């Protein structure tokens, strides 16, 4: 366990003496991001609060650099780990710089006056989160995205070796989510800090994490790399998804395919079908599509959004049996959509389908 900056041994967490999750085994190295995912109320925040000593452990031990954390003083812990919480704070008349410099607390003297070195660290942290121009502004008057960056700067300023973040992207719009995580990733790489966080957004968790922990029910349900965890069927099970799917390739969540007999046939391929699939999905029209190659980008989406996809093996020309299947399906549909412009050797038969559709006046 020596290589891990922090690890837990049979940690049990919960409220008011009632265990919520037990036998938690977490481990994170420096320069790595460990992300907790799982349904709401699973106890992600409880775990993070227990690790940052906001709450007492109900059992087990947390080790920081091989030392049990309960043997360390508040000040020692403060120099090892810092955090960004999900609860909003409303500090009165504090500039962003004031908020960030609060991170210097474990290093300043008994009256908390900042030295030259402290001020430099504050400046450096503000630069790292691209917030130098916010320094003099009132913390309460900046946007959510800016606020989250300032709080991250505060955490960085504390010069921790581990940063704990509880849903850091919760209130942010997509641009600020990406910005924040990019900063985090850069910081982890450059400063070799360990990061332990919880994330709501699976697609982001899949892309940023080195390791993922799934919290479910009263246990840690799974631990592994994003590649291992983000399997469509597992994510569906973890979150109990019944009305949609998790698309592993894109890392996106898709609504469930529309039930019913296909009314429309889409001749797809080469990405031309995606916008049509989404439009039909939104309008609640069941559709069939084909013939798609198993390595076509259209196929990855079509398999989530349609219950009737005619698929051909990758790199093979469309075989007659699949062509006939598609033709049969097309004949049962009232209308045909086709955005595909280019036809070549492999999808030559799709061109034939298009011609038939045109002849029959089904093409829209």
């Amino acid at each position, binding site marked *: 366990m020596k290589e891990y900056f922090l690890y837990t041994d049979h940690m049990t967490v919960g409220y008011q003496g009632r265990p919520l999750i037990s036998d938690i085994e977490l481990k994170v190295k420096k320069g790595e991001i460990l992300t907790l995912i799982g349904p709401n109320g699973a106890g992600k925040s409880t775990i993070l609060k227990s690790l*940052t000593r906001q709450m007492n452990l109900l059992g087990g031990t947390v080790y920081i650099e091989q030392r049990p954390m309960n043997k360390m003083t*508040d000040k020692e*812990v*403060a120099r090892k780990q810092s*955090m960004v919480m999900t609860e909003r*704070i409303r500090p009165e008349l504090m500039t962003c710089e004031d908020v960030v410099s609060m991170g210097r*607390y474990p290093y300043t003297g*008994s009256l*908390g006056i900042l030295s030259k070195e402290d001020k430099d660290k504050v*400046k450096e942290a503000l630069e790292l989160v691209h917030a130098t121009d916010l320094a003099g502004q009132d913390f309460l008057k900046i946007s959510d995205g800016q606020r989250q960056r300032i709080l991250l700067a505060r955490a960085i300023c504390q010069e921790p070796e581990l940063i704990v973040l509880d849903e850091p992207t919760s209130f942010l719009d997509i641009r600020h989510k990406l910005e924040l995580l990019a900063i985090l990733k850069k910081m982890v790489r450059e400063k070799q800090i360990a990061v332990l966080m919880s994330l709501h957004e699976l697609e982001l968790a899949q892309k940023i994490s080195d390791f993922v922990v799934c919290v479910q029910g009263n246990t840690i349900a799974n631990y592994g790399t994003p590649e291992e965890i983000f399997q469509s069927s597992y994510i569906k099970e973890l979150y109990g998804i019944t009305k949609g799917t998790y698309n592993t390739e894109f890392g996106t969540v898709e609504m469930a395919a529309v039930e019913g007999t296909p009314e429309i046939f889409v001749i797809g391929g080469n990405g031309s079908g995606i916008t049509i699939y989404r439009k039909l999905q939104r309008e609640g029209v069941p559709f069939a599509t084909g013939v798609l190659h198993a390595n076509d980008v259209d196929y990855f989406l079509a398999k989530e959004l349609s219950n009737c996809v005619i698929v051909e093996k990758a790199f093979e020309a469309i075989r007659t049996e699949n062509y006939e299947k598609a033709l049969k399906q097309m004949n049962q549909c009232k209308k045909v959509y086709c955005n595909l412009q280019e036809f070549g050797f492999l999808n030559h038969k799709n061109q034939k389908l298009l011609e038939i559709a045109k002849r029959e006046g089904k093409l829209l």
Partner: protein
Amino acid sequence: MEVRKNHTANIRYGIAFLILIALLGILFVWNVNSGSVDLTIKEIYKILIHKKGEETSFHIVWDIRMPRILAAIILGGALSVSGFLLQTFFGNPIAGPFVLGISSGAKLMVSIVIVVLLEKRILVNSFLMITAAFAGAMISMGFVLAVSKKVEKMSMLVICGVMIGYICSAITEFIVTFADDSNIVNLHNWSMGSFSGMNWDKILVMAVVIFFVMVTTFCMSKPISAYQMGEAYAKNVGVNVSLLRIMLILLSSILAACVTAFAGPISFVGIAVPHLVKSLFKTAKPILVIPGCFLGGAVFCLFCDLIARTLFAPTELSISSVTAVFGAPIVIYVMIRRQTKV
């Protein structure tokens, strides 16, 4: 640019302190100079600096006006620092010893002790008064804390505090009514809030007690500043939060109790002054605001006492009615501003 910004901030703090000290000086002289007996500045100068002068004037300045002025300075300062500590504790700008019923709790206990001891012909000394007031303050505080665990909204907490205040005041009235005739007048004056009836012994006691509390409070500016960002972040940077919370409660209660023991309940100073001081300094940093609040409270109470004493002289107004006139609008302003911001 960075350096310049820090520089202007420091100049601002310096000017703010100078303004407060200048106001304190002006009000001090004005207060010494006002009253039923007119004295010239020259005479006052002679009496204060050279300790010489005509005997009646000397007596008036040294034994009546000076103790009263010093009481207003010390107790006014204590009251606003108490307010600042409570606002920090509850994380809300409309908390204060008066609205949370802490002053009234102290008042109740003090009047019980006075009445009981007077019946038995025992003289009440200052320390006993402070102890009684502290006990009363802690009882009210206990109620407020119990309520604060149940209610989320700060406005509810304030309403509960005001109610506790009413109950305590009602019981105090009841006790005063049954008190010995000869003492009612004094007790009545005191229970309405007044800086009159001070003497040097009392000044000494309050100065010592409040000095120690103030030094302790000032030394705690660092953890208090961390606490302003909320309990969780304070804990995260290594503050012993439970100890700090206990200290905040104890210090604010001692300050409020001390004020009540000597001058009765005084309204709104605890909310209005910290707000004004923070606006003047444009920061809430405890290391500046704690001394700032003390000076500000002293200035505010000197000013209000001057009005209480001279506006309808020789009839004196209760200090609370004057502080309310100036303080309550500020409290309303703070509440409205907070509402619109959320």
